[in-house]
């Protein structure tokens, strides 16, 4: 399970003249055209009193949603506006097979716990689900957020639907919001792919060393292999624990396999030379110079085709 943190404004608007009548009828407040409540506790108490407790809940939120501020406006014609700024953690199912060239959907699911579809129906116009435009935004044309590791699609998908609860048998309205995010691959290319490619290239340098010099050839291969293994440990410690293989996993496994094959080639040529087949050993060594990189390239292409 993967999560994401969000900081957002939430606005809810609906019409219920009974709420205004109730507040006006309490006679605790002077009669006004609009009643305004600005503290979070007061807003929650009023909503409970008028029969609108916990209007919405975020189904896929993890832990508690922290409401930083909220207000409630009740107008004489029955129009009600509820606002809150909240911070919360949400979980969303990610598909990481293409990692680190993956795109994800960050899902926010809004529904009601108390009010079924006979009482509440949601409406979420697409233009109302947006990235908040900061007044200090230096690039006003870019409507999406700027994140270090992700590109966010400015068009947020929004879907209003209905589902039948298996527990109660009643149908409820819900709003599903999907934010499309594409991972920026710069970090992975420069910090993971490039170092590993350099390590594997160093291991292939043994093909340019004469077969008789087996000790040096083996030590270069083994040092490169151990470096790759330790680098792999470092990468896996910073990655998500998932059961299936990703494109990155296939790349790392590929480097291990080809480095092992390099060691096998060194030993093979050594044994061939010892048996007096120096010419064959030299040929194998010569062909390996381009055969290994070409095979690795083909392996990467096949892996990418499988994953994409």
């Amino acid at each position: 399970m993967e999560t994401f943190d969000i900081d957002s404004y939430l606005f809810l608007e609906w019409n219920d003249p009974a709420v205004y009548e109730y507040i006006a009828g309490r006679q605790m407040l002077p009669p006004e055209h609009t009643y305004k409540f600005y503290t979070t506790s007061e807003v929650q108490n009023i909503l409970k009193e008028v029969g609108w407790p916990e209007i919405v809940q975020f189904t896929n939120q993890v832990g508690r949603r922290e409401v930083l501020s909220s207000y409630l406006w009740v107008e004489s014609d029955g129009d009600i506006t509820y606002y809150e700024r909240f911070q919360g953690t949400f979980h969303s199912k990610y598909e990481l097979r293409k990692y680190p060239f993956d795109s994800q959907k960050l899902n926010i699911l809004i529904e009601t716990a108390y009010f079924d579809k006979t009482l509440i129906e949601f409406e979420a116009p697409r233009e109302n689900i947006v990235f908040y435009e900061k007044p200090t935004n230096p690039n006003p044309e870019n409507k999406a957020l700027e994140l270090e590791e992700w590109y966010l699609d400015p068009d947020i998908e929004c879907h209003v639907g209905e589902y039948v609860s298996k527990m109660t048998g009643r149908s409820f309205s819900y709003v599903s919001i999907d934010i499309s995010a594409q991972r920026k691959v710069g970090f992975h290319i420069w910090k993971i792919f490039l170092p590993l490619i350099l390590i594997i290239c160093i291991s292939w340098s043994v093909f340019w060393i004469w077969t008789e010099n087996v000790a040096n050839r083996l030590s270069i291969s083994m040092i490169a292999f151990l470096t790759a293994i330790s680098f792999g440990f470092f990468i896996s410690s910073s990655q998500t624990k998932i059961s299936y293989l990703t494109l990155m996993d296939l790349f790392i496994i590929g480097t291990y396999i080809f480095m092992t094959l390099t060691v096998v080639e060194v030993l093979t040529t050594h044994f061939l030379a010892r048996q007096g087949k120096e010419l064959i050993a030299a040929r194998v060594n010569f062909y390996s110079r381009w055969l290994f990189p070409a095979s690795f390239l083909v392996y990467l292409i096949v892996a990418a085709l499988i994953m994409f």
Partner: protein
Amino acid sequence: MKKFYATFYCTQQHKTARIWCLRLFLVILLITLCFSFSPYNAQAQEENSKEHRPFTITVSLGIIDIPKIDEPMETFDRKRILRNIDHSPLR
């Protein structure tokens, strides 16, 4: 033969009455239909349905920031759980 005439006579006598009955029934049906489509009744139906119509809540979201994506949740997160307890010192 006598019986035949009696039957014929009886049928002819009731035929007119039956036609009038049918006409009356059609007129009543027509009036009922007219009433059912009358504006008063339509309004009454509308008012009746208004009572049961669910409230439409318009949802708007203005996303300010997404500070973190990709946090693995495999391990037991003590801090997160403590933060969610009302009387926790971390709150």
